[in-house]
Structures are given as C-alpha cells and as structure tokens.
C-alpha cells in the first residue's frame, strides 16, 4: 500500500481499524498477558496491516485477517523480548490460539456479561477499578486520600475482581460449562 495515492483506502482502513482495534488487543493480550506489551504489539500490527492492506479481501471479515497478522507479530515480539521477560513458548502460543478460536462465542457472551456486571458496581468500586486499570500507581494515592493502607485497597481490588468474575459466571449460567474442566 505504501506509494498508493488512494486516500479513500486510507480512510477505509482507518474505519476498519477503529472498529476492530480493541478486539485485536484482546486477542493479543491472550498471548502476552501484560497490557503494555499488548498495546505495543497492537501498534506494530496496525502498521503491518496498513502495509498489507492491498492484500485484504474486502468481501471477507477484517478481524480474522487482522488476528492472523497479530499472531505473527506476537511471535516476532517473542523473539525480540523473550530474553528479558517471561513470554510463552511457541507451542504454548499455538495451543492458546487454537483454543481461543473455539471459545469465540463464549468470549462474546462473557463480554456482554461483563458489561452488565460493570453496570451494577458502586461509584467507589468503579473509581478503584479505574485507578487500577488506568494507572496502577494511583491506588496508593487513593489509599492516602481515604486514610487507609494501600494493602487494604489491593485486597478490596482482588475481592472486587472476584465478585465481577462470579457475576459473569452467574450471568453466563445459560451458556453452560465450556469444558470438562469444571
């Protein structure tokens, strides 16, 4: 695509990317776990997707194509970063990719359940989660504001995450167990 003068293609690409960037992020996070790593890989994926956009078949869904590119970027990232941080082996990544594909309907239901569960949390709990997921360092600041120890807030945070996970399980009861593991 570089060198093309088709600005409309750029707009079309931008539209697709804005539409699917969070889904691609979730996919990448499966393999690397850490948010910062996933965001960095997502940035690389965006660049590669644009470079290869002329190969994209618009009659087919964008997301699977983007996920394929993302998987290879994860492998590249692993090669570069595995020396100084813990990243899954290739055979583990492959197993995760295969399993994730079969779980897509469950993950979609889970996403909806999470949305409903988040709608029920209190403003205080929402603030705690916001501090954790926007900037983990502010948990200590929040504790200082409330005159409590950071440890107590981290315990409350874990408890809150457990409650959300339980809420999701309850809401997904009709989906049924996802495997024999339960």
């Amino acid at each position, binding site marked *: 695509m570089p060198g093309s003068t088709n600005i409309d293609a750029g707009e079309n690409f931008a539209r697709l*990317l804005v539409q699917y960037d969070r889904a691609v992020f979730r996919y990448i996070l499966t393999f690397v776990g850490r948010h910062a790593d996933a965001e960095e890989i997502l940035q690389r994926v965006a660049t590669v997707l644009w470079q290869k956009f002329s190969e994209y078949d618009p009659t087919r869904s964008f997301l699977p194509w983007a996920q394929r590119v993302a998987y290879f970027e994860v492998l590249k990232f692993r090669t570069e970063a595995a020396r100084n941080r813990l990243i899954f*082996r290739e055979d583990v990544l492959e*197993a995760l990719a295969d399993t994730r594909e079969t779980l897509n309907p469950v993950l979609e239901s889970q996403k909806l359940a999470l949305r409903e569960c988040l709608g029920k949390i209190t403003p205080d709990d929402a603030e705690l989660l916001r501090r954790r997921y926007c900037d983990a360092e502010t948990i200590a600041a929040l504790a200082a504001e409330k005159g409590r120890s950071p440890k107590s807030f981290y315990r409350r945070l874990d408890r809150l995450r457990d409650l959300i996970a339980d809420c999701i399980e309850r809401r997904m009861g009709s989906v049924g167990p996802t495997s024999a593991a339960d």
Partner: protein
Amino acid sequence: MSKIDEARERELFRQLVDGSLSADEFSAVEQRLLSDPGFRERYIRAIDIEAGLYEAFNFPGTFSTTVTRKKSPIEVFLMVAACATVLFGFVGWLFWMSGAPNPNAAASLLPRLKPVAIVTQLHQVAENPASPLEIGMKIRPGLLNVATGQVQFEFFNGAQINVEGPAELHIQSVDKATLISGKVAVRIPPGARGFVLNTPNAAVVDLGTEFAVFVDKQGTSEVHVADGEVAVSLLGNDGNTLKSLRITEGMSVRVNRKPAGLERIDAPSVTLPGLQAQIATPLRVNEDYVRSIRASRPAIYWRFEKLVDGRVPNEISPRWSGTIHAAPDDPSAIVVHDGMARFTPSEKPHRLEPDDTIPGFNHESFTLEFWASLDNFHWASLVAVVPQPTAEIEDAVARNRHMTLIELPYNSSFVCSPGSFRFLYRHPPGNSGGTNLFSDGDCSPGLWHHLVAIKTPGRIKLFLNGKLVRHFAETSACDEDPYRLLVGGLDEGLCDRQLSGAITEFAVYLRALEDEEIKIHYRAMTANRSPN
C-alpha cells in the same frame, strides 16, 4: 474445582498479568497450559475479562455510553495519518511510516489525541457508575455505544449530532463519523459545511443542512433530510462512491446492501430523532452571590431582572444603565428576561452598551466579570472595550478599534484549543496586535461559565469558573481616555461575531479583583449545587 482452588487459580492469572510470577512459576503455568485444556480455557477467559476491564476503564466508549478515552496507540496511529494528510501528504507519510525503523515513532510524535467534540445534552441515558457520562464531557475519536436514551454532542467545528440508543457510532475526526447501527440526527451550520457521516455502505456528505440517518442491524441505511441538501453515496468495495444521489428537504432515500443500490422512499421506516434545542436555562443566582458582588464594589452591575424605562438598570448607581441597541424591526436580537440577556444573531448590528462612556476605565486596573452561556460553537464576541470613535474616521471598520475583547474564537487563525475563551488586551487600541490569553477548550455549549478578565499595569489574567487559567506578565499601558463597553457584538456598525447565547450577572470594576475575591464569588454561586 473447589472454591479454594478457584481462588488460587484466579490469583495465579492476576500475577501473570501483573508480571509478578517467578520464572519457575511461569514455566509451571506453561506446562499446565499445554497439558490441561480446561486450565487453558479458564486462562483465556480470565485474560479476556482482564482485557475487558482494561478496555472499560481506558476506552469506556467501547463498553457503554461513556466516551472519554485515554490515549491508544491505534488512535495515535490514525491521528498521525490525519495530520500527515494535511501537512505532508498521505503518501509521503505512508512512505515514511513504512520505512520507520522504530514502530513507536508515530506514537512519540503525538502524545495524546485531542478531543473533537463535547457532550451537550443527555436524555434518559442509563447511568453507569463504571463509566459516567456528563454534559460538558469531551469526546475523543473512538467508538461510542449508546444503549438507551439520547446523547447529543457538538463537534468543535460546530456540527451537532444527536445519537439515539441503541446505536454504535465511530467518531473519526472533527468532521467525520461512521454510524455502524442505530439512529442519529445531524445539524451542520455553515461553518462546518462538508461534514461527512458514513454508514457501513454509504456516505452522507453535508451540503449545509440538517438530516437524520438510520442503519439497521443488516447494515441497510436510510437518510432523511429535514432541511437543506445532502449528497448520499453508495460505496463500493473499494470505499469509493459507486452511485450517488442528491436529496433535499423532506426527501428520503434507502441505501440497500443486497442488491446494492440507492432507492428513493416516501418516508423512513422508523421514527428518526431530531436535534435538541440548545437554549440556555436561567442561571440560578442566590443572594450570597449578589451580596459578594456588591461587597466587591463594582462600578456597573447588571442583573437583568427587569428593564426600567427600557434599560437594564445598574444596581450600583444611576449611571451606566444598559441600553439595547437593535433595529426596531429586529426585536428578538437582544431580549432581557428570566434574569439574563439573550442574544440572537441577525443580519443587523446590535449590542448592549452602557448609556455613557466610562472615564478612567484604563486609568490603572480594571476587571470584567460575568456569566455566559453559548448556544453552540461559533465566533462569539462576549464583551468588547473600545475607545470613543474619532470623528474624522468615516470607515466603520477603521473606526472600530479594540482595547479589550472577551470572546469565543471559532474557525480562526489563532493557535488554541477549540472551544477556548479568549481575553485580548491591546494598547493602544487598534485592529490587530496585543496580547491574548486563552482558556483550554473549556467552553461547553448550553452550560453557564463564570468569566473574569483582569488587567493591571503589570499583568493580565483570565479566570474561568473561579480558577486562574492563564496570566501573562507585561507592562500594560494606561491612559485617561473614556471607553465604551459593547456586549454581545464586536463593533458598533457591523454584524461580525454576534453572540448566540446569554449573558447575566455582568459586573465592571475599576480596579483589579483579588484572586480570593473571585473564588468567593464563584463559591457563593456554586455552594452545594451546580449553577447549571
């Protein structure tokens, strides 16, 4: 699985996300992920919840009606594309991008995407404590999901959109958005002409109008024009116009996916929303505020509670009553009611002005303090301070020289955040030059703002809502000339920059208010409640 095992497993997954597992623990997790399909599934589901929480609080628009978004590398990527299009040409940027040795170089160019719009109205939107949505909240490019109710916002270029849930809207830039599903109403003022609303299979290019669009779950679009004219394009697979049609007021068109085509229809298949009027509600003024203003001893204090002999009385003295200057056949240009002066742009000059000049206004220091609510983003002159016109200057433009302006610039050549208030001090008075202070994109149409502008011999200051937002130290000349105050219009004989909105609690001081006094005034108005 027992509850204890389940708790341990969740903790293990959290440690993995936090990067706090030891190498041995990590290796053990790897082994189990390979050998235990159930564990592998639970891990993927747990990580996906983590991703969902991260997404909900960093990019809330993807999960609910909230739209405040933190910086995303993808957003930065797109923003660089947009800037490059303007500055260097898209092709050149792509070439540079493809050869960039550091994939994060693009991100480092733009530390943060700027907001492109602001929420102006909410109707029956379900509250969500995880992602609250408020009037005045700024919107950055990204995805907006509205589950129920209506969310109206105004782009900084002046375009207004009302989204009726359930709907999904991708906001791409200050002049472009894509409706994925649901209903929207769009109004484009002349200054924002060219706004494009895309749907999955169509593009609606505004030609100066108001229109509404519906996209169903299958991606079929319907467009109805309420006023003016739009061009509707059916897009091909390459994203370019395949067929197009111009439709005007009262006409509707359906854009079918299969078979692809444009079809005129008598009326949309659903009831489409309209735009909510953005009219200022009266400011709720309490006695504490009035007392605090009087205690600061202004020279002029207009409260707009009534007219006396057709004028706005000065609460402090018989001097400087406010006179409405408007054409006899233009009675709605300035209307005093409900404790405010309401200004409506027209094709004839109008202004509110003290019935006498103010001698010694710039003898040393002065302060202008008032509350303003704007109907929309437009270039609005709130207050202008001008010298007595010189008799020998005949030309209206040349006659209008300003010493001070307080206004909201719009589509201007100034470098400032969109939606910022401007305080200009210029001496000697003239048509250009001077020193500007800007707020930081704080104007929210439909809300009341407390503005205070101060000039002293050594400094100028701009306060917004009780806080000092900008100041600049410089020697500011003084003089003994009489000055005129023009409210709601830039010049005496011109129609430029007319205000669409309301002003109230207007006070002029022939001294500099102390910072603490301004805080007291603002607190008196807002104690325990919002002024809006």
